């Protein structure tokens, strides 16, 4: 592959409320047995990208732990590999990353010392399966300066949280609005780009000179007319999990067979750190319906329309309905959990009742400030 990868996984996020106080967005558990960054990493390795940098700063410990070995995504190679870039101090610079462009600028030597002609930029919070070799082919065919992977958000969900592109007949982007209050279109930027490495260096350096730090507003929006920016329309599933609403919905989407088949049964696979948990155990008297359960879990109660992550224990006569139970959580006997997200490492005593509403999901957070 003639491209290197950059995964932006650093952002602070408040839309996920309590769930992200101790956890990087890219390390959010998704779909039972994955972390959200697994999708970005798997897409890279499955597209043949062998050298990837993950740029992170906010709550990075949870993410770095997940990435402690790169072999799960097949990045443990002599050439290339997985690099994690956290902010560091030098004589000239003692800033944290002041934005996405600044984060790349502070690690510009990674780009300068590479030989791959192209760079692929992706986000750590996108749940998507995409073949970058196809995007790159498109990029070359269009003779684009920048190719932006876009997604047509037919349901118009949360449009004001994304950049919205307007394209001409040739899919060249003619207008781009970042997080508009009244969006005109529904062509959402997924935050995935392909750009020539030398051009990226040039653009980032000129940004830095002008004390500008954000890749979207200071590169994409500013250069949208001067440079040829093309939209590559991604046809499959895409969702960013960066809000409570979308996090809940994205997880629940995996109860849909077509989405599950697309991610889990069609090659290439999405890879994750191997956790070596034993099979799910479903004991006498349990009923489980339309739910995902993950390895290491033991179920005694009644589960309906829910997602159980790894190492969850459900006690006798407990009911879990339309809920997400994150890893390592213990739910005692006779509990009732409905329309809720239970954070990891929670311990719900016998008889606990947590009832949210369908449009008002309750989050139960672990009391100790565990970072997992």
């Amino acid at each position: 592959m003639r491209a290197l990868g950059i995964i932006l996984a650093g952002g602070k996020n408040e839309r996920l409320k309590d769930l992200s106080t101790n956890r990087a967005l890219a390390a959010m558990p998704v779909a039972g047995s994955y972390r959200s960054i697994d999708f970005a990493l798997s897409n890279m390795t499955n597209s043949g990208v062998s050298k990837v940098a993950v740029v992170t700063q906010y709550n990075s410990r949870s993410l770095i732990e997940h990435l402690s070995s790169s072999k799960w995504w097949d990045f443990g190679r002599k050439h290339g590999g997985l690099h994690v870039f956290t902010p560091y101090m030098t004589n000239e610079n003692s800033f944290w990353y002041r934005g996405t462009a600044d984060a790349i600028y502070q690690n510009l030597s990674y780009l300068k010392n590479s030989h791959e002609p192209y760079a692929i930029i992706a986000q750590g919070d996108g749940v998507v399966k995409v073949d970058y070799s196809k995007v790159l082919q498109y990029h070359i065919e269009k003779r684009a300066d920048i190719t932006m992977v876009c997604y047509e958000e037919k349901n118009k969900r949360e449009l004001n949280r994304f950049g919205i592109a307007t394209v001409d007949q040739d899919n060249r982007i003619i207008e781009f609005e970042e997080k508009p209050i009244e969006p005109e279109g529904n062509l959402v930027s997924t935050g995935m780009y392909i750009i020539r490495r030398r051009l990226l260096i040039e653009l980032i350096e000129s940004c830095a000179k002008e004390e500008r730090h954000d890749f979207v507003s200071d590169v994409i929006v500013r250069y949208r007319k001067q440079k040829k920016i093309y939209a590559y329309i991604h046809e499959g599933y895409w969702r960013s999990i960066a809000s409570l609403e979308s996090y809940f919905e994205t997880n629940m989407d995996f109860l849909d067979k077509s989405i599950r088949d697309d991610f889990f049964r069609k090659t290439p696979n999405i890879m994750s750190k191997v956790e070596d948990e034993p099979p799910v155990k479903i004991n006498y008297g349990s009923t489980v319906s339309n739910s995902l359960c993950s390895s290491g879990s033991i179920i005694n109660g009644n589960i309906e329309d829910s997602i159980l992550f790894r190492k969850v224990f459900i006690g006798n006569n407990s009911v879990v309905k339309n809920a997400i139970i994150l890893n390592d959580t213990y739910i005692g006997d006779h509990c009732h959990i409905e329309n809720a997200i239970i954070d990891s490492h929670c311990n719900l005593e016998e008889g606990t009742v947590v009832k949210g509403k369908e449009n008002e999901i309750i989050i139960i957070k672990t009391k100790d400030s565990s970072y997992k």
Partner: protein
Amino acid sequence: MRKKEIVAMLLAGGQGSRLGVLTSHVAKPAVSFGGKYRIIDFTLSNCINSGIDTVGVLTQYQPLLLNQHIGIGIPWDLDKNFGGVTILPPFVSKDNNAWYTGTANAVYQNIPYIDYYNPEYILILSGDHIYKMDYEMMLNYHKKKKADVTIAVYRVPIEDAHRFGLVKTEEDGKIYDFEEKPPNPTSDLASMGIYIFEWKAFRQALILSEESYEDSDFGKHILPYMLSKNFNLYAYEFDGFWKDVGTLEAYWDANMQLIDLVPEFNLYESYWKIYTKNEVQPPQFIGQGASVEMCILGEGAEIYGHVYNSVIGSNVIIEKDAIIRDSIIMNSAIIGEGVQIYKSIIAEKALIGAHTKIGMGEDVINEEQPHIYYSGISVVGEKTVIPPNVEIGKNCAIDGPVTKSSFIDNKLASGKNLIIGEGSD
């Protein structure tokens, strides 16, 4: 010179013929177990959990799957710069007949492998038991007793003792005699096939035994020889869970024990994890209208039917209205709509056509292989495709490229085999 204190040699070359068609295409240590594991995973995990990071795996019978499974040992953290796991297949040399002719002969042929690590102790293991054991404790015992050989033993009911190799010990554990499967046993201490040897003495014994016997074997030759030469042999009694899975019945039993409310062999303890190659990672899905009770399910299994008291492997699909009871469905098998399966074993990647019934009718012991298929369990071999709407009895074995026309009146009566092609021997 760099050295390892202890090197493990894991004997994984046997066929395990009493597992019937389950071992037609794979060696016994590679047979699936417990939803997502293979039998050898337990021994390999025991090694790394006991701090033994140098393991030679001796293969011979159908090694392909075993090779793929073990690879360079990543799942067990046995990918090391010095040490790690090494697969040791038979090889040809100037003055050698290539095949491994006996357990001790196999180790003898690999003396150069062991010499490279210059160890003090050798641990001999076999890859066909289900157990969790801390070999370090056994090694400590070996050192404390100043033994030349330590044999792990397990107390078995005296009425079963005739099936085992037995040791007789003095009060302090010193062994003074062996009995190999005696008709009238006088001891209930069965050898588990796990030995620790002093390498120097053991090396000499291997060479001597090789000169005298063509099929040099631990139980038959090495141990009796060392006893006769007044070496110190001690028995180390192990009282945890240890299960031989050498017969279909024992294999089925050991799987079913994992389903118990609190299983005696508990996979859910985090301090002694069992590692395996995880080819599949997605979570398990249970559909609307499905029912699952008293089961364990491997990664990526999708259940739309009704499953009770069964062990379900990774990536298995059970379609709607299917009923599975008391059965073992191995990795990547697909069970069609409306299928009924009772007390049967469906091997990896098998496909059961819609509305087929397996494990029906009377309990008739198998005609051709009564020593294998006698416990009521029917077995469908790896990658075997069973056509829709057929009825299969108990104690049946089906393997190979069967078709609709292989069945008479769409039926296979209890106790009959339908084995086509390579699996027929």
